[in-house]
């Protein structure tokens, strides 16, 4: 299976964190060329490439940039989303660590395309090394006068998943509580400080120089028609060689997990696959031939999400998985809207009871109903992201849930690989917190 490197290209041979080396692989040449072009020409390339956002929502990048008003009495902003917090996802950090200049170059090209003079990179607070690498690269670029009058600010987050949601990110960047905003108005009209703002993922940005280099049409030949190009997939879980792999979209799960990842270790059986980060529906082992592309995954009842593939083998208790995932969302729910704030807690309570073997059969339906009542009712996608996977676990592994109820205990009897891998519920030590009885 060929690993086709586009956005990580050159990083295996050279230390591309150094501007010098990056120049040797044609670094910043595309920026120079782009600056000669009309902004519309860059947008046309993006459109032709059919690049879709790598942050998880898969929105067409060119189209989104096209929503930015041409003339604006207010400044325009580009915000790069480097908050990477989706469980299972660690590709943006690899990109920032290995090709920081490509992130900067892509951002500057995009800024030119939307005629923005200000770029903010919002980086996850825990990513200290990544921040430092990016900062060093930025210093080099500034020194080399590559910014071309654009101000580029690195802003560190403070540890909230919701600040990866684009409007939560904007609030946080403005120094407020990180909570999503109601849309409309969309950020392209009323974004950061009320001004037009484009928000793109790190990987999306790092892809842009290559699109300029290859040309949009050429780039679109990679991958599949609906999911063009390559992606850096984060492979984790019960797999021999976890890690980040840049592959064309459309690669099948089997190729990734077995050919590249070396399959399931210890001679265990593949039980399930989470194909796009914790927010997406689970797939069963028999769906392992599904290609990692938008349409195919949708057909399979899930999504490519943030490109994080989590492999689950037969050691893991699915109820515990559900509990672990639900706890994450309960903990990360920002608390702004009712269904997510209250529903995620209720889900955790129910899952705890099921795992403990204290639940009745009809509580499985209640759990599904709670998910159903969150779904589609929330202000931002986080609520859905909590409800969809949990509902899929119950749907696809109902027997395992039922077994908990029937046996009055976890059938794994303390042997599950997820045993006690639960989130500490109170991570706000030192702050006024409230006991949450779960």
């Amino acid at each position: 299976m060929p690993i086709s490197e586009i956005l990580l290209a050159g990083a295996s041979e050279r230390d591309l964190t150094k501007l010098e080396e990056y120049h040797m692989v044609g670094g910043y040449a595309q920026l120079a060329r782009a600056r000669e072009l009309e902004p519309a020409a860059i947008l046309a390339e993006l459109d032709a490439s059919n690049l879709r956002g790598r942050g998880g929502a898969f929105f067409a990048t060119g189209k989104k940039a096209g929503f930015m008003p041409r003339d604006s009495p207010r400044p325009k902003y580009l915000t790069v989303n480097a908050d990477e917090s989706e469980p299972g996802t660690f590709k943006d950090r690899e990109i920032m660590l290995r090709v920081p200049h490509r992130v900067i170059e892509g951002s500057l090209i995009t800024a030119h395309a939307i005629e923005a003079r200000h770029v903010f990179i919002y980086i996850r607070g825990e990513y200290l090394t990544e921040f430092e690498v990016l900062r060093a690269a930025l210093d080099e670029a500034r020194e080399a006068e590559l910014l071309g009058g654009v101000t580029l600010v690195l802003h560190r987050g403070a540890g909230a998943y919701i600040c990866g949601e684009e409007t939560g990110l904007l609030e946080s960047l403005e120094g407020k509580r990180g909570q999503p905003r109601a849309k409309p108005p969309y950020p392209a009209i009323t974004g950061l400080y009320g001004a037009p703002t484009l928000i793109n993922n790190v990987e999306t940005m790092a892809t842009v120089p290559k699109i300029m280099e290859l040309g949009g049409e050429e780039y679109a030949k990679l991958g599949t028609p609906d999911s063009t190009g390559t992606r850096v997939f984060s492979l984790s879980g019960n797999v021999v060689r976890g890690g980040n792999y840049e592959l064309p979209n459309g690669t099948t799960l089997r190729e990734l997990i077995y050919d590249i990842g070396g399959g399931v270790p210890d001679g265990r059986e593949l039980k399930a696959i989470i194909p796009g980060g914790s927010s997406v529906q689970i797939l069963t082992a028999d769906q392992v031939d599904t290609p990692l592309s938008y349409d195919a995954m949708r057909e399979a009842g899930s999504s490519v999400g943030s490109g994080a593939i989590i492999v689950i083998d037969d050691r893991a208790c699915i109820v515990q998985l559900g509990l672990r995932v639900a706890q994450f969302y309960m903990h990360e729910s920002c608390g702004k809207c009712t269904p997510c704030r209250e529903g995620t807690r209720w889900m955790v309570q129910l899952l705890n009871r099921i795992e403990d073997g204290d639940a009745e059969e009809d509580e499985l339906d209640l759990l599904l109903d709670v998910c159903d009542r969150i779904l589609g009712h929330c202000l931002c996608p986080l609520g859905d992201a909590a409800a969809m996977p949990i509902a899929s676990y119950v749907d696809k592994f109902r027997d395992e849930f039922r077994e908990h109820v029937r046996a009055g205990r976890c059938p794994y009897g303390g042997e599950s690989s997820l045993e006690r891998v639960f989130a500490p519920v109170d991570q706000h030590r030192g702050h006024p917190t409230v006991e949450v009885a779960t």
Partner: protein
Amino acid sequence: MSVPELVTVSVDGREVQVPKGTGLVETALAAGIEIPVFCYEPRLGPAIGACRMCLVEVEGMPPKPQAACTLTAQDGMVVKTALTSQLARNAQNATLEFILVNHPLDCPVCDKGGECPLQDLTFRFGPGRTRMTFPKRTFDKPIPISPTISLDRERCILCYRCTRFSESVAEDGELVAVNRGAQSMIATFEDEPYRGRFSGNVTELCPVGALLPTTYRFEARPWEIQTVPTVCGLCPVGCNVNVTTREGKVKRVLSRNHPDVDGGWICDKGRFAFGHLGARDRIVDPLRRQRRRGLQPAGWDEAVDEAERLLRAAQGRIVTALSGSETVEQAYGLAKLMRTGLGAHTAVLPEEISDAVDGFRLPLSAIAGAELIVVVGDDPVEERAPIVDLWLRAARRNGAEVVTTGVGGGAKACRQLAGEDDELGRRLRESDRPVLIWSGSGGAGGAHVAACAERLGFGSKPDSGVFYLPLTPNGRGVVEAWSAASDDEGPDPDPIGLLFVSGDEAASDPSVRSLAERADAVIATTMFQGSAVGWADLVLPGTSYLERDGTFVNLEGRLQRLRRAVVPPTPDELAWISQLAGRFGVEVSPYPSVVFGELSERIFGGLPYGEVGERAALRGREPTGELRAPAPAATPKGRGLRLVRYRPLFSGAAVERVPELAFQRPAAEVQLSPQDARRLRIKAGDEVDVRSNGTSRRLRARIDKGLVAGVARIADEHAEELQATVEVARA
């Protein structure tokens, strides 16, 4: 003005036409359909879509319920609410189920019960039974977030109305949400008491029993109360209020949105000061001075006889000291008695009142739409007329520039603005929507700003406005009534045979006290022992604005109706004024409606009493002829800083009698400009000594960027005996 485009929207099959961009909640309402909401409250700024109560189905949008509160009417939109859409019905039911999973079953002991939107909506849209079988989230409760407000976090449904009020209306930022997810809770910043001037509004905004006025705790049930619509009589804004009474007692004061006056907000003084009605030193019987025994309770007949005797004995050498808090009718009745009955035309008021600003009249709400606003005068606006400060904040949020200037020299500032080459003046001249506000004393009742506005060409701009913020709630109405009673004039009496002191404010005015020292006799009408009892010969019990019927004129010049919320423990002023007037052959009806009728013929264009209205209209502009600024008062000379005293919002006879408001009383501070502070090497928070010949006060320094150099500003009650020029030095 462009006419807004009308669009047609179908709501549950009913078609309505509304201006494009109308909120969907309002659009449905126009079709007679209610979309339930919790977090939506347009007065708090853009919708936030938090509670998810308003979910509806909209054709052509993604096949999931949409939050109506964040959508606006577009042509051809087809909306289905829970009435006709299963999707919407399920969604609303789900939202209520989620809200209720952690909501305590407190209704039987919750003060909100019976007037609770959560109860109401649960009955209509919610599930009948609970599926929650886990322990609910619990908190310590209730928590006093200030002496006036209690917070019950268990009841809180996290709609964020209260924090949005604090952040984007009052802009005090004191009420915040902390933690996240299911652990989110409302708290005050750093656990300090919520000290904002408008904090009480959150108790009305809260759609559940989470934020409640502590003074209303366990006081009444909705079916036991009466609601009396009236206006607040504690400052010249005249906020429209509803007074809740139970069994003849005032239990709380709520706002009653007059969009042009108060926008539905009231300040904490207006909300919480009603406790003064039951003050321990309230006078309920007349008091008559008796030889050697001092003041003794007297019957009403005896009191009226004595009043008559004192009035006659003065032989017309009478001075009436008014408070500016009398009703128009009361002031008119008193004026008729004094002026036509006794030929006593001299009256003093705590402040100058001029009608010059009426030529530039605008509703207060227009401030929010102004472009450039210049505030001159010594007093912080929020201390004089708090709601005006909210309008100023709204203006700033809407993009207006608000400039404060001329503290310590407003008249001079006005002259400068009107000068040929003043930059700010030039911009006022060029602006289409300029507003000038005088806040403080020394403004000759607004004559200075009005003259300035005239010279700046406001006269030809219908959207320009001038406001003068009087010290007294009805000073304008009192002056109008006093002058309407007679056209005659007379010399000021010297010596003074009788000083008639009307009201507690007049009684506590030091200049009135010095008049009393020069008078042969004093009749005072006050509510409280503390105010005048020591030096009056006859004390007639006074009443509060909450106990009176009549009218008030607010600072805009708006005539508003005051309604008796509770019966006073003593006959009201008009009753005995009427009786006393009869003794002098003057006819004054004891009924405010009749008095008003008579007065209205003279000065209010014959407006019937019944038509003053719940939401009183504003009279048009009344040009006042050529405007000339009066000569400015002489500024005291001398080394040191000029002392500027102001009367704080939380002061006065009523506030002083309400223990819950004690925490709001002004700190013992002196406000200094940054320049003076630097020069005197004083930092914020330093203890300083403020001296003027002979007296000294130790106060804490506060640096106020709005102050000009050369001025030290101190609240009246902390300035005490200090003279006009003071020296300030670090202690």
